[in-house]
Structures are given as C-alpha cells and as structure tokens.
C-alpha cells in the first residue's frame, strides 16, 4: 500500500474547505485560550503559581475530548447522511484514499495545532517576565498532547466507520476510549477503596505486633496470638498506565495519582502504538463499511442493544457503589432504577428517535441490571476476602507526614525499602486515639502495587528515631542529595515566586552551602525549589539555618516587597507582625517604615523580626525582615490592641 499515492491533497483541501469555519474555531480556540492562561499566570496577581505540565495543559483536558472528535466528524461525517454519501462516494476517489487522506490530514491538523501551541508557549515563556517554562516541559507538552489528540482522533475514526449517526459514533468512541480502563480501574481501585476499612496484617513473627496491642478487645487479642495485626487502613489509588485520555479521566474520577505521573512514558508508548493499530483497524472497517447504514444507530438491533448496555457500565458501576453505601435500601434502589430506565429511554430517543425499542427490550434491561449488580457484588466479595496481606508483602514504605520537627521535605517524597524501619514502626507505635502532636503518617506499597496509608500514634522521640533510621538508608541518602540544580526553573519563598534575577543567585548559594542532611532544623527559613527532571516537576522543600542563605532569602524578600509595594496603596494591604493585633494606624506606620527604610540587608546571625504584608485578595504574601527590633516593638507597643496578651519575645528569633 503506497500511502503517497493514496493521499489526495485536492480532496483534503476541498474537505477542509467545506467546514473551514468550524475547524478554524476549534483549532484556534485551544492556542488562544492557552495564551490567555499564560498571560494570567504571568500576571502579577497570579504569578505565585509554579508552572507544571498539568497547569500548562488545563485547556487540553477539555480540548482532547472535543477537538479530535470534531475534526473526525468534519472529515468523515459525510457517512452519516445518505445524500452526502452519494455525493462523496461517487467522486473519483477510492475509499482507501478517502480514509488515508482524511487520517493523514486530521493528524496533520492536530500536530500543527499542538506545534503552534508549543511555539506560543516557548515564545511567551521567553518574553513574559514572570513566566519561566523549561524547554523540556514544552517538548514534553508537545509530545504528550500530540499523541493524546491523535489517539482520540483515531478512535473517533473507528467509531465513525461503524456507526450510523453522530450520537452513536460519540458513544462508540467513549466505549473504545474508556470501557476497558474504566472497568479495570473501577474493579482495582474504586471497589476496594473502603476508607478506614479493617485489614488484617499477618506478621511473620511475634515482634511486629506492638507492645500495647493486647490492650484492646478479645477478637484482636486472639488475632495477636496468631501473629495477626488488625489495622484500619486507607486503601490508596494505584498509579495508572492506561492510554493517556483514560489516565486523565480515571485520575479525575477516582482521585488517582495520575496527576503526579502526568508524563507517563508507558502510557505514551501504549497510546502511540494503539493509535497505529486503530488506524489499521479503522482503515479496514471503513473499506467494509455498508454506506447504506446511515441516519440510524445500527441496523442490527442486537448491536444497538449491546452498545447501549455497554454505555451503561459506568452508570451502573457508580450506582452499585451508591447502593453499597446505602446498604441496598429499597428507596435508593427504586430511585436508581428510575435513573437507569430513564437513561435507557433517553438513549433510544436520541439514537433511534423512538421509544418503541424500550418496550421491546425491557426484558433485556431487567435481565442486564441484576446480572451486572451480581457481577459487581461478586467482585466486591472477592476483593473483600482477599484484602488482607502479610508484612512480607510490604515492599516500600513512605513517610507522608510527621507531627513534629522541621525535616528536609525530600524524605516525605521517597518510597524506600527498609525492613528495620518497618519493624520499628510496627512495634513502637501505639494503637489508640490519635494525638495531634504525636503521629506519623505512613504509606505501605505492596509487591502487587496496592497501596495503603495508616497514621500511627508515636512519641516525638520515636519520630526522631525513625527519621534517623531512615536517613541511614542509602537509597534515601542518594535521593536527598540528588537536587537537580541545573534544571531548577522556579523558586518560591513562602507563597512568593522569586524573580529570575534573584533566583539564580539563590540557587548558586544553595548549591554551595545547603547541607544534604535530614536533620531537624529549628529557626530555619524555607525555600521551595522546582526542577523539571525526567519529565516530572521535582519539588525540593528545604528548611535551612545556613546564615548565608538566610541572609539572601531575607534580602530577596525585602527587595521584592519594596519593588511591589509601590503598586499598592496602603488601603489595599494588611500589615501585621505575627501574634499581635494592632490598630490600623499602626499598620500605616509599618507601611511607611517599609517604604522609607532604605536598608534591605538583614543579618540573620543577629536578632531579627519580620512584618507580614498581604494584599486584599490575600493571594500575595510578603515578609519584610529587619534587625531593627526596637523600632518594630515601638510601633507594636504604641498601637497594640490591649486584649492581646502576647509577649513580644515569643515572636522573634535569635
């Protein structure tokens, strides 16, 4: 098959010409909205946002399910009308050529649109002062979305090739795109996602059962005798490797982690290969398409019913979850039955323009719903019976959060293997009411990728011990030390994004002076750094007490505030010193102090205080540091609202 011979440019030109208006709107709308979003992100009021691939892609989440389908229908939609079928298919162009020309043309449009989009992003990134987007991210954006858009287009082409009208074509597209991933995700994630469900963890020896474990009820005591440990675990969603559009939707539906593995290489390859396969399938289906089957859903009523029943899978799945939550009570059952029959009715009305089919197929419906529910119940029971696991099944642990201490946040990102840490955690933790000050939240990832979270009750000493234990782990150390300074593209101090000129200075200082340790840091200042490494945004949240870095942070924050404060009249700002309530005149005095004080340098080795400044919308927070403690205290004392009985000493550091 010679693709070049089969590509008919004249036909493509004419085919695009007839729907040029619609195409121009739909193709233009994505780059235009994207440009507006980028301008918004660049705008001073929104500049705190660090650009990530999902942020950059906002409009595409919607566009991906509209644009490729619109293009597909513009190019192939003639097959839905008898008159246009006669017209186009009588022209001197073969079906092979029509399919190949339209497919290549559609893909070219989508590639071009994404290319234009990427070029605009690149230009704006280099033009707008507040917008820094790594080139790697722009390239990934282009690859990711081009593959995703083309995939939906190829799916839609298959749907067009086998359906008789636009509505059924969209329904078939949705089925091809989502049915398998949705069913898999539902069974593997949504069904077993019972929050605080009681899981039994089998210990391989007596040691992993906590010391105070015998204090609870008889059942638990008996379980402990068998080296079994009951915990109320939160099952977490697994990561997804579906095709790209399914990742986006399923991530959204089941609150999965696809957001964090947005650029999923496995998914991209899978999506790309499936696109090629779908092009071949679409080609043969189009050649064999019975053109007389148009202006109706499917000629064969059986096929129509199968498609209709399949489109009900997501609805029935969620209905099952709702019924399960309501313990299958009669009223819920009745309401949901009405919803399902309503859907069945509307589907027929839209696709076949009649409701007679409902009467004819009511028995199918009445048979299908209970069968589906039974199937779901079966899966549910199976998953319930197989949810328990052994300690040996735990492959990775991750500390998500601790109640006390100011540790390098990198430690909370990594999943590591450490049997010693795991055993310590299981044996030195309490089994009772959680205390706000004494907890450690841990995620367990099993060998089969299931993931559970549990918040243990631990003493601050045990937290420190655990962290020290983990810090000795070579993988953890390697991860902590691995800061990709060369690719850092955004730095934040509080909620303030650091401008480019200051950012590079700060990065260099961190590179030189930042200790690569996990130790608890008191009286430190926080820096958030973002790099684009291995197709992902890596966030480094670091607390440092290094005076050189702290001096620079204070200088940057002070300078930024002094540059920005000229844009704000006093009545648009709130000013305060943490812990004090002062009168408005006091705020004005602090405002004038900041404006008139020429010295932006602060010595962090000496005593210092900071004034917090926020605008009305509170989307901007600034800090103004100063060693001039006496002056600030003088203003506070003068304007302090009397009922606040704080002592000033508590709120400055030395």
């Amino acid at each position, binding site marked *: 098959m010679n693709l070049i011979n089969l590509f008919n440019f004249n036909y493509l030109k*004419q085919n695009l010409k007839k729907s040029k208006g619609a195409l121009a709107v739909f193709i233009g709308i994505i780059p235009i909205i994207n440009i507006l979003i980028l301008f918004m992100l660049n705008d001073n009021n929104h500049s705190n946002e660090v650009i990530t691939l999902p942020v950059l892609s906002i409009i595409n989440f919607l566009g991906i399910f509209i644009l490729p389908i619109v293009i597909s229908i513009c190019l192939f939609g003639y097959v839905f009308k008898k*008159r246009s079928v006669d017209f186009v298919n*009588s022209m001197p162009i073969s079906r092979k*050529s029509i399919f190949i020309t339209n497919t290549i043309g559609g893909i070219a449009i989508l590639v071009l649109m994404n290319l234009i989009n990427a070029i605009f992003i690149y230009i704006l990134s280099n033009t707008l002062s507040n917008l820094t987007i790594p080139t790697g991210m722009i390239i990934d954006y282009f690859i990711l979305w081009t593959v995703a858009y083309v995939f939906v287009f190829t799916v839609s082409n298959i749907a067009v090739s086998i359906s008789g009208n636009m509505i059924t074509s969209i329904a078939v597209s949705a089925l091809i795109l989502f049915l398998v991933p949705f069913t898999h995700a539902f069974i593997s994630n949504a069904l077993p996602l019972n929050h605080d469900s009681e899981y039994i963890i089998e210990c391989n020896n007596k040691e992993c059962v906590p010391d105070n474990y015998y204090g609870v009820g008889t059942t638990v005591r008996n379980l402990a005798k068998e080296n079994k440990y009951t915990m109320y675990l939160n099952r977490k969603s697994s990561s997804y490797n579906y095709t790209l559009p399914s990742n986006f939707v399923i991530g959204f539906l089941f609150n999965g982690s696809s957001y964090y593995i947005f650029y999923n290489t496995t998914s991209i390859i899978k999506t790309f290969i499936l696109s090629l396969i779908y092009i071949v399938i679409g080609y043969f289906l189009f050649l064999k398409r*019975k053109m007389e089957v148009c202006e109706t859903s499917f000629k064969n009523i059986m096929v129509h019913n199968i498609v209709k029943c399949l489109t009900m899978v997501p609805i029935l799945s969620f209905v099952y979850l709702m019924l399960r939550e309501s313990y299958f009570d009669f009223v819920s059952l009745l309401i949901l039955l009405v919803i399902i029959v309503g859907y069945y009715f509307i589907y027929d009305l839209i696709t076949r323009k009649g409701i007679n089919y409902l009467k004819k197929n009511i028995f199918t419906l009445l048979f299908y719903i209970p069968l589906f529910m039974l199937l779901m119940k079966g899966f549910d029971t199976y998953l319930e019976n197989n949810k328990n696991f052994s300690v040996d099944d735990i492959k990775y642990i991750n500390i998500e959060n601790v109640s006390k201490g100011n540790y390098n946040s990198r430690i909370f990102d990594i999943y590591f293997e450490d049997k010693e840490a795991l055993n310590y955690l299981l044996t030195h933790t309490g089994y009772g009411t959680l205390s706000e000050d004494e907890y450690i939240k841990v995620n367990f990832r099993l060998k089969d990728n299931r993931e559970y979270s549990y918040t243990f009750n631990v003493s601050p000493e045990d937290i420190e011990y655990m962290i020290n234990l983990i810090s000795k782990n070579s993988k953890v150390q390697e991860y902590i030390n691995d800061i990709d300074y060369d690719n850092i593209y955004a730095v934040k101090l509080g909620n303030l994004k650091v401008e480019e000129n200051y950012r590079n200075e700060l990065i260099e200082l961190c590179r030189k002076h930042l200790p690569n340790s996990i130790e608890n840091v008191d009286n430190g200042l926080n820096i958030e750094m973002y790099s684009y490494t291995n197709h992902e945004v890596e966030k480094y949240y670091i607390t440092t007490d290094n005076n050189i870095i702290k001096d620079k942070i204070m200088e940057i924050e002070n300078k930024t505030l002094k540059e920005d404060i000229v844009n704000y009249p006093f009545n648009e700002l709130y000013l305060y010193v943490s812990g004090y309530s002062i009168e408005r005149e006091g705020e004005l005095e602090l405002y004038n102090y900041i404006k008139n004080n020429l010295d932006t340098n602060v010595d962090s080795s000496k005593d210092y205080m900071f004034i917090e400044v926020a605008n009305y919308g509170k989307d901007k927070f600034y800090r103004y540091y100063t060693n001039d403690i006496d002056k600030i205290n003088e203003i506070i004392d003068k304007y302090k609202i009397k009922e606040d009985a704080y002592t000033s000493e508590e709120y400055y550091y030395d």
Partner: protein
Amino acid sequence: MIKIEGLSKAYDKDKVLDNLNCEVKDNCIYGLVGANGAGKSTLLRLINNIFLPDSGHITIDGEEVNDNEYLKQKMVFVPDDLFFYPSYTLMDTAKYYEALYKNFDMVYLKELADLFHLDLNRKVSTFSKGMKRQCALICALATNAKYMFFDETFDGLDPVVRNTMKKVIAKQMEEKQTTIIMTSHNLRELEDICDNLGLLYKGGILFESDIDTLKTNMYKVQICLKGEYDKETFKGIEVLSYKKNGSVATLIIKDEDKTSKKKLEKLKPIILDYLPLTLEEIFIYEMEALGYEFNKFI
C-alpha cells in the same frame, strides 16, 4: 462497455437485486425503468461503488469497479436526492468537481450555466428544486466523464428546461462518445432520448431492447374493410393486439420484414393508417406478449 454479472444486493432481509445480469454498450443512452423500489437507484449506487454488492461483478471497460479510482475518473453520478454543501455557490461546487475530476471543463460549465440562466455565484441552497437539479447535471456534464449515471434525471425540471437538457445530454453523447445510464419511473420521459431501455423488476432486468428496433418493428394500424371481418381476416400478419370499434379495427402489429403494408393493401381497405406507437404502448404490448401485465411494473 458496462457489464454486470450475477449482481445481488439486500438491505437486511429485503433483497433488492437478485442475480442481475446486464450489458450496456458504449456510446448510447440507456434508460432504466421500473416501479418505485424496483432497485434502479441501488443498481446505480452499486455501479458507482457507493454501496458494496453482496455478490456479483460489475466491470467497466473490462475493469472491476470495486474501489477503482482510475475507473471512477471516467464515471459521474447524479443521484435522485441531491446534495450540496450548505454554504456553497454553484461555482464552489464546480470547483469541488474540478479539484477531483482531471478532465473537468470549467469553460463548458460556464457555458451551460449561462444556457440555463444559473447564477454561478449564488448559493445553491437558495435555488429551487429544479435549479438544483440543473446545477448537479451541468456539473456532471462538465466532468467529461465517459460514463454518466443520472438517477431520476429530469425530476423537478419544467418542460422547457427538460427539453433543453435532453438536447444537451444527447449532444454530449454524440460529440464526446459518452455512455449515459438514466433512470426514471416514467417511460415517457425517456422515450425521446434513450437508445436502449431496460425494465427492472423483482431484482432483475426483465426486458431490454434498443428503442429504434422496437419503434421500427411495431406499428399501430387503423383499418376499415368492406363487409364483415375479424382478427382471422389478418392471418399472415403478427397481430399483438386487436380491437374493433364499429367498422374500424385498431391493430398492433409486429412487422420485422416490412411486408405488412402490402399484405393489408391486398385486402382493399377503405381506411388504412399507420400510426406511431408511444414507447409506453410498445412496452405494454411487448410485456403482454411475454405474459406480464405491464401496469404492475410501472
């Protein structure tokens, strides 16, 4: 030449064409007649590869039509239910044809548009039904395709335009050696333009013949003889139909060897008139001769 062998097509369980065989010689106008639902449009769609046959072969100039782009350059089809892109003018539509047909003649199209008083720059959607039909036909004619297929060709055209269009089509056939297949459920529409006629019935060609032969072989004769006479009086002449009203008898005779006039003159008739037959009459008598009742087909 168009050759159709064993062609069958069914819509679900409804068989429209059943083992149809037919040949259409080059450079002629072939009229395809049949009742509504006889399968005329389906046959044209199958020839033009719009629909795929369930079985059978269609060859044109010895080549299978199946998705044959080269062959499609030589074919143009004007369906019964016309289609134009909503915002297109006649010129836009012509350009669409021009982009796809290598031999499209834009000058000729403009001539034809002028002849039929069609504004090239007016949106086709604003034209009347008959004008739309004219647009479709002149675009098809301007393709200079060797094989033209017109379904319900003159549907919606007023008598003046219909005659002009017939002349244009006949001229096209003569000057450009075009082969035209046109369908109608109305025989009268085709009789003065077609060279050959085929009657489609129950999924097959029931009867086909060239019109000249039909017309020159069959006559309507009005005769009056002295004294009493009946059908037996005309022994030796192939009488397809005999009706006597008073002393005047009307005969439909088949006269392949052209000897009937001499034979009748020997009977010394008081009145002897040879009258032309309409195509419909010819079909009626031929069908009756085959044992069918014509009114069932048309």
